C-alpha cells in the first residue's frame, strides 16, 4: 500500500473499529484548587514580577467585566461580554507569549489584550464607540483591536480567524521572524468549517501557530454535549496530525506552562499546536443572554468554587508575593479607576461623519465622496434629526 498516505497499523482480518476511546488525552494541572502546587509539578518560567503582572491583569479583568456588565444594565453601553470564571485562559496564555506574537482572538479574550497593556481608556473608548476608539466606533462593544499591541481586531463571524491565523503564521515563518501567532476560539466555534480548514492548513503548511481552544462548556445556550460527541476538541488534533495538549484552563500556571512550551515548539519546529483549556463560562453569554433559560444554578455553583483568580491569589499569598492588604487596595483602586474612566469616555464625541466612508477602501472612491456630500446636505436640512453629527458639519 501507499504509505505516504497513512501510517501503517496492524493488519487485521476481521473488522476492528476505532473510536473516541482509542485515544487517551491527559490533562495538565499544576496548581491545586487551594493554591498549592501538585507534587512534582513543573512550574512555568515565572518570577515574582511576572506573576504579579499576571495577577493584576486578572484583577483588572474581573473588575472591568463586573463594572461593564453593570454599566450595560444602566443603559450606558449597549452590549458587553464578560469572561467571568475563565479569565486565566486568556491572561495566562498571553503571559506565555512574547509581545511580538500576533494574537487573533474570538471575543472573550480581553484578558490577553489587558496583559499586553491596552489601557483602560482604550477599552472604554471602544465600548463607548467614541471618536477616540481605534476602531472608529464602527463595531459593537468588545470588538477591540490594536496594531501596536499585535492584537488583531475582533470580528464577529465565528471561526474566520482560524484559517487567517494559519496564513498569518505562514507569513511570519517566511519572513523568518521571531514571532508566532496564537489563535483563540470557543468550543462552539470549533464546529465551523473554518476550523477544519485552518487546522488542516496549518498542519500541512507547517506554520508556527498555537490554536488555543477555550472549552467553556457552552456556545450561548448549546451545551458541549450538543456541540460534539468526541473527546473534547483535543481529540481532533490527532486527526490533523497536530501536537495537542489538554489543560485545566482555570489553573493559571498550567496555562502559562503549556503556552510557553507550545511557543517554543511551534517556533523551533514550524508546526502548529492545539491547546484545549477546560473551563466554564460562569457568566451569561453576553448582556443579551439569560442562562437561567438553559442551565441550573447548581451547575453554576459547582463552578463558582473553581475560581481561577482565587486559586492564583492563594498561590501568591503562599509565596508571599502578595498580601491581603495589597488585594483590598488593588480592587478598590481598580473599581474607582473604571468608574472614573466610564465617566470620561461616555462624554467624548462620536466619530465624525467622514468616518462613515473612510477605510472602506484605501482611498475614498468617487462614489463614496458623492454619497458623503449628499448626506451632509441632508443633515444640514434636518439638523435636529441627526443630533450626533449635525453640530459638527
Amino acid at each position, binding site marked *: 500500500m501507499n504509505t505516504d498516505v497513512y501510517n501503517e497499523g496492524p493488519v487485521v482480518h476481521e473488522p476492528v473499529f476505532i473510536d473516541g476511546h482509542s485515544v487517551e488525552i491527559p490533562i495538565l494541572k499544576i496548581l491545586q484548587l487551594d493554591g498549592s502546587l501538585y507534587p512534582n509539578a513543573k512550574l512555568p518560567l515565572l518570577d515574582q514580577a511576572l506573576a504579579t503582572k499576571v495577577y493584576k491583569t486578572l484583577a483588572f479583568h474581573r473588575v472591568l467585566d463586573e463594572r461593564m456588565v453593570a454599566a450595560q444594565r444602566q443603559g450606558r453601553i*449597549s*452590549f458587553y461580554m464578560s469572561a467571568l470564571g475563565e479569565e486565566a485562559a486568556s491572561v495566562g496564555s498571553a503571559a506565555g507569549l512574547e509581545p511580538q506574537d500576533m494574537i487573533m482572538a474570538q471575543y472573550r479574550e480581553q484578558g490577553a489584550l489587558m496583559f499586553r497593556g491596552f489601557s483602560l481608556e482604550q477599552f472604554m473608548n471602544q465600548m463607548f*464607540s*467614541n471618536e477616540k476608539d481605534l476602531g472608529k*466606533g*464602527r*463595531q*459593537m462593544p468588545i*470588538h477591540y483591536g490594536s496594531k501596536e499591541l499585535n492584537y488583531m481586531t475582533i*470580528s*464577529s*463571524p*465565528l471561526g474566520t480567524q482560524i484559517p487567517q491565523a494559519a496564513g498569518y503564521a505562514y507569513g511570519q515563518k517566511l519572513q523568518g521572524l521571531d514571532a508566532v501567532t496564537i489563535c483563540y476560539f470557543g468550543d*462552539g*466555534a470549533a*464546529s*465551523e*468549517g*473554518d476550523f477544519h480548514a485552518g487546522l488542516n492548513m496549518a498542519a500541512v503548511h507547517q506554520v508556527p501557530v498555537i490554536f488555543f481552544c477555550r472549552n467553556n462548556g457552552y*456556545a*450561548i*445556550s*448549546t451545551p458541549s454535549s*450538543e*456541540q*460534539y460527541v468526541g473527546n473534547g476538541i483535543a481529540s481532533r488534533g490527532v486527526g490533523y496530525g497536530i501536537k495537542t495538549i489538554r489543560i485545566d484552563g482555570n489553573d493559571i500556571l498550567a496555562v502559562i506552562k503549556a503556552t510557553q512550551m507550545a511557543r517554543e515548539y511551534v517556533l523551533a519546529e514550524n508546526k502548529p499546536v492545539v491547546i484545549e483549556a477546560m473551563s466554564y463560562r460562569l457568566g451569561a453569554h453576553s448582556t*443579551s*443572554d439569560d442562562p437561567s*433559560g*438553559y442551565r441550573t444554578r447548581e451547575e453554576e455553583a459547582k463552578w463558582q468554587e473553581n475560581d481561577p483568580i482565587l486559586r492564583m491569589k492563594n498561590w501568591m499569598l503562599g509565596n508571599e508575593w502578595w498580601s491581603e492588604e495589597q488585594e483590598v487596595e488593588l480592587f478598590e483602586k481598580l473599581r474607582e479607576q473604571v468608574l472614573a474612566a466610564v465617566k470620561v469616555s461616555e462624554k467624548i464625541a*462620536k*466619530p465624525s*461623519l467622514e*468616518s*462613515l*466612508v473612510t477605510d*472602506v477602501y484605501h482611498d475614498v472612491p468617487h*462614489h*463614496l465622496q458623492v*454619497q458623503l456630500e449628499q*448626506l451632509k446636505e*441632508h*443633515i444640514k*436640512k*434636518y439638523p435636529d*434629526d*441627526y443630533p*450626533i*453629527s449635525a453640530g459638527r458639519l
Partner: protein
Amino acid sequence: MANMNLLQAINNALDIAMAENDRVLCFGEDVGHFGGVFRATSGLQEKYGKPRCFNTPLVEQGVIGFANGLAAQGSVPIAEIQFADYIFPAFDQIVNEAAKFRYRSGNEFNVGNLTIRTPYGGGIAGGLYHSQSPEAYFAHTPGLKVVVPRNPYQAKGLLLAAIREEDPVIFFEPKRLYRASTGEVPEQDYQLPLGKAEIVTQGTDISLLAWGAQMEHIEKAAELAKADGISCEVIDLRTILPWDVETIAQSVLKTGRLLISQEAPLTAGFASEIAATIQQECFLHLESPIERVCGLDTPYPLALEKEYAADHLKVYEAIKRSINY
C-alpha cells in the same frame, strides 16, 4: 384574532406547520430548548419533542447542508440562521446546492421543502455583523424564492406559504420589528401569496416601493409628502424573487414615478434590478428618473447608524426630488 408581535406570529406559524405535518422540523443554533436567541422557536421543543426541534452544532454550512439532505429525503426542514449576517458560510449550500438541486437532476430530486428563516436588518445598534440585509445576494440565484414580511400578519401568512411552497425559500425576518411591530393576527391557519406585491396605500403621484422593515420608512415619508399635497402609492414587494413586475409596472404606468427604498447598500442591491426592469417596462410613462434610496455603499456602521440608514427623511427628500424633477 389575537394581538401578536412579529415574533409571536412567526412562532405561531411554526406551531401550525409542525402540528399539521410531523415531517416539519425546526433546527439551528440555539433553536431547541432555549427557543432561539430571539425566542422564535420558543416552546416548540417542549411541544413536538427534541427530534423535531433541536439545537445544531455551530456551523451554518452544516445547518443548510443538513437541511438540504432532509428536504431531498422528503422531510420539511425549517432551518434557522441566527443572524442573516452569518448566512454566508452557507452560501454554497444555498446558491450552488439548494437553488440548483431540482434543475441539475432533471427533477429526479428536489429540495422544494426547504425553508430558511433568518433575522436581518439594522437599526438595532448591531454594527457590521448584526445589521446586514443580504437579500440581493440571493436574488441573483435562479431556483430560490426570497420573501420578506413587514408585520406580524404578513409574517404568519407568508411563512406558512413559504413552508408549504414546493421551492426552497429564504425567509428574511425584520428583527428590528420582532417586538416593535404588533397587530391583529388570525389564530387559525392562513396563507398569503408568494410572488405578489401588495399595494398598501393607493396614490396617484408617485409609487413608493420597499419591503420588510423599510416599509415603515416609506409609509412615514408618504405621510410627510401628503402634507405637501403629494399622493403616494405605497407598495410592499413582499417577495424579492421571483418578483411581481406586473403590479409595480401597473402602478408606475399610473403614477409616472417610482422610488425604491432598501436598507442594503445602493450598489447592486435589489432596488437596482427593479429600476432596471421598470425603466424598460414603463419607459414612455416615466416623468422622472427612478429614485433609489438605500444604505450607503459601506459596511453597516455602529455609532452613526442613524446617519447611514435610508430613513423616512431621505425618502421624503427623494419624493420631492422626483416630483419636482
